[in-house]
């Protein structure tokens, strides 16, 4: 069956990039983020004790990148119009290098997938975005894929 919403024309948007945004990672921001989760791990809170680990100092907790948003590319779904409803479906993270206080992290979001399926309330569109977080040395630290559902 042909897609009603995710047409060939709509699929051409895959690969579209949002504007990059650069953040300077503050020690206090890492500590406050860990505190908000209620995570007392010294790796995120205690420079002295974190220094004794193989990381050699404080690092950011796994979901810290949630505090470093970047503009998402605009996805046009003409068949849904402006009256769609949306849901956050979840996230897939991959970790390559630790993020540390003082790092300059550039976040950029790209549209990586569009899928359509038939739901109870009619057609649903699964929109997958990937955000990359790259440090000042050009090392890819984290990728986050998030799937939003519009219907």
């Amino acid at each position, binding site marked *: 069956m042909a897609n009603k919403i995710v047409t060939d024309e709509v699929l051409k948007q895959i690969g579209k990039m949002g504007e990059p945004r650069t953040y300077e990672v503050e020690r206090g*921001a890492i500590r*406050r*983020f860990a*505190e*908000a*989760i*209620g*995570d007392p*791990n*010294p*790796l995120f809170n205690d420079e002295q*004790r974190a220094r*004794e*680990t*193989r*990381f050699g100092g404080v690092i950011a*907790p*796994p*979901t810290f990148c*949630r*505090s470093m*948003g970047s503009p998402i590319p605009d996805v046009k779904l003409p068949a849904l119009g402006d009256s769609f409803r949306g*849901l*956050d*479906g*979840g*996230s*897939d*993270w*991959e*970790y390559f290098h630790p993020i540390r206080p003082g790092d300059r992290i550039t976040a950029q979001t790209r549209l990586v997938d569009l899928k359509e399926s038939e739901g109870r309330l009619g057609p649903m569109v699964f929109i997958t975005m990937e955000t990359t977080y790259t440090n000042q040395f050009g090392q890819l630290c984290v990728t986050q894929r998030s799937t939003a559902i519009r219907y």
Partner: protein
Amino acid sequence: MAKQIYFEDVEVGSEIGPLEKNPTTQQLVKYAGASGDFYQIHYDKDFALANKLPGVILHGALKNGFLGQLMTDFAGPEGWLRKLSVQYRGMDQPGSKVVCRGKVVKKYHEGDQHLVDCEIWLENAKGEKTTPGSATVVLPARHLH
């Protein structure tokens, strides 16, 4: 610092956690401030009710953060969380306990790395898995394999 677990210490089926959390509206406000997610459904009850919600609800990303804590606790200071996936299936409200749990589903090597795949989830007070997911951690080994 948490006690370090080694690759040899875990088996398929080994349990991870539990990590119990008792989120309050105050915690949601702290998380909104720390993450920059100021969507009102997470702290403004009138706004949440007007949006047909039962009241304010936990940020999905906060539950993601709880599951991140479960896994960095498990990996210990010498381990490394390589992958973390979560799916938001159900809503959770402050004032009610949630528990993060997991179990090891696979142990394997990749090059000189010792890896463990885990099934993880966050469950509500009724034991319903509102936020299932998976994770992969690199663990240190006592002996080279």
